[in-house]
């Protein structure tokens, strides 16, 4: 078991944004989290990554409870994420963005960096190569030296994924990665997520693009008003009347 979300709740003032949500993610699994706008999906990510403390319940990653663990530590433990509203380091190049993502996997401290020790140079070299590979993996290998904010939206999304992967996580949280992509671009994304899984990483995917979700997820968790209203395989969920009522709507066709 990679991750266990155990009866987690989050309250904002009078609003229960996440209410007693409970599910697990197994290694190499792709779990989709879906639900209407404002259901609490992004908040759930914030709780898992330690950005917000849960009001009650706890998140356990690889048998370690994450209560009180700082976000950067959680990343170091092996959970990486992307953001719904892209948050790149705008002035840095694409490659540098990925290098920042690799920060917690590097060791060189202040003085080796200043004196350029052999170990530091070797590490730097290796990480740069790996970063370039990641950029190529997500399909923006050519843009390594482009300033991140000058990339078009879709490519920025991919860059975020590359940055997240750079920390060599075992669990990747993707918050609406397909937003702003057209169908063929979404297909590329689907291939990319499959590749991530092939690297033996678990993925939690928030997405409103049902084509993508249904195609790729092993299991779905459905939230509504903060509560988990259903959990199951895409097939089961697709036919769940409550989910159709709250979220999917009747198939247009």
């Amino acid at each position, binding site marked *: 078991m990679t991750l266990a979300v155990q009866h987690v709740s989050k309250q904002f003032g009078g609003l229960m944004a996440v209410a007693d949500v409970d599910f697990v993610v197994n290694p190499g699994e792709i779990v989709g989290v879906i639900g209407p706008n404002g259901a609490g999906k*992004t*908040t759930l990510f*914030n709780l898992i990554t330690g*950005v*917000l403390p849960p009001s009650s319940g706890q998140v356990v990653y690889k048998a370690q409870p994450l209560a009180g663990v700082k976000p950067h530590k959680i990343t170091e433990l092996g959970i990486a994420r992307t*953001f*719904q*509203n892209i*948050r790149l380091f705008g002035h840095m190049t694409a490659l540098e963005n990925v290098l920042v993502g690799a920060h917690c996997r590097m060791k060189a401290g202040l003085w080796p960096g200043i004196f350029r020790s052999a170990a530091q140079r070797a590490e730097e070299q290796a990480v740069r190569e790996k970063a370039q590979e990641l950029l190529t993996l997500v399909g923006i290998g050519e843009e390594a030296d482009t300033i991140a904010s000058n990339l078009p939206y879709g490519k920025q999304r991919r860059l975020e994924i590359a940055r997240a992967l750079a920390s060599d996580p075992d669990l990747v949280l993707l*918050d609406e990665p397909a937003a702003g992509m057209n169908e063929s671009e979404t297909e590329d994304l689907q291939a990319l997520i499959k590749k991530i899984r092939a690297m033996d990483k678990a993925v939690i995917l928030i997405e409103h693009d049902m084509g993508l979700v249904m195609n790729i997820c092993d299991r779905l968790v459905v939230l509504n008003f903060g509560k988990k209203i259903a959990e199951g395989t895409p097939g089961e969920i697709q036919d769940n009347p409550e989910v159709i009522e709250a979220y999917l709507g009747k198939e247009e066709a």
Partner: protein
Amino acid sequence: MFWQQMVNGITLGSTYSLIALGYTLIFGVLNIVNMAHGEIFMFGAFVGLMIAVHANVGLAGALLAAMATGAVLGYLMEVLALRPLRRRKVSELAPLISTIGVSIFLESLALRLFGAEAQSFPPVSSTQVFDLAGVKISMVQIIILAISCGLMLVLRFWLEKTKLGKSIRATSENIETANLLGIDTKKIIVLTVMLASALGGGAGVLVGLAFNAIEPTMGITMGFKGLAVLILGGLGNITGAMVGGLLLGVAEIFSVAYGVSSYRDAVAFGMIILLLFLRPEGLFGSKEQQGGR
């Protein structure tokens, strides 16, 4: 003595509030700290003094003249020093430096124009002192307190409830978005800067009257205090400016009255550091939005 010191503190504090209100207003709309506000305040005081001495128009006339001066200076500052920066997307530092430049310019201009010596207003009826059961309070102190409280209420209402006020707030958040909503942001900004500067100019006259010393470097001294209040109360918050000012005034006075006067300034700033430790956004500042999306 306690009550006398309390009165001392509140009256000192209300002058701080008066200055901080202008700071806060400009911060509220432009998201910059106008380092020249103190100097505009000082110019207002001098022009008010000139008018009072030479034109014999009384307090109201002096106030009006000072406010007009403030507004004109504010306009010039906006057009010459702030607007050119806004065209490009730059860090918050550029306008900070630019207004520091304006403040240095204005201070040395005042030294040239008015000389370095401290001057004071001719005695007017407002220097009258009341004695309430041994507690002495002067008319001008009462006027200042009343004006700053009144201003606070008016400004708050104006920003929160009126269309213009809301446009100002929208502009302060994001100029591009405000433009997209059809707001003439240029006009809004000029207006606010002029208004805040007019308030600064008027404050100059009142504070000059209260303390009886007007000189070119008073802008820095008072401006520095205003800055402290701005932070204490929370950036861009009108109520914060008012309460923060009073708090600082009382704290300063009490540090002298019941502590050691030589640590007065340290107490004021120590208090700020301490408070920020507990509430990093100031007394009334809004918490930064948590979480990422």
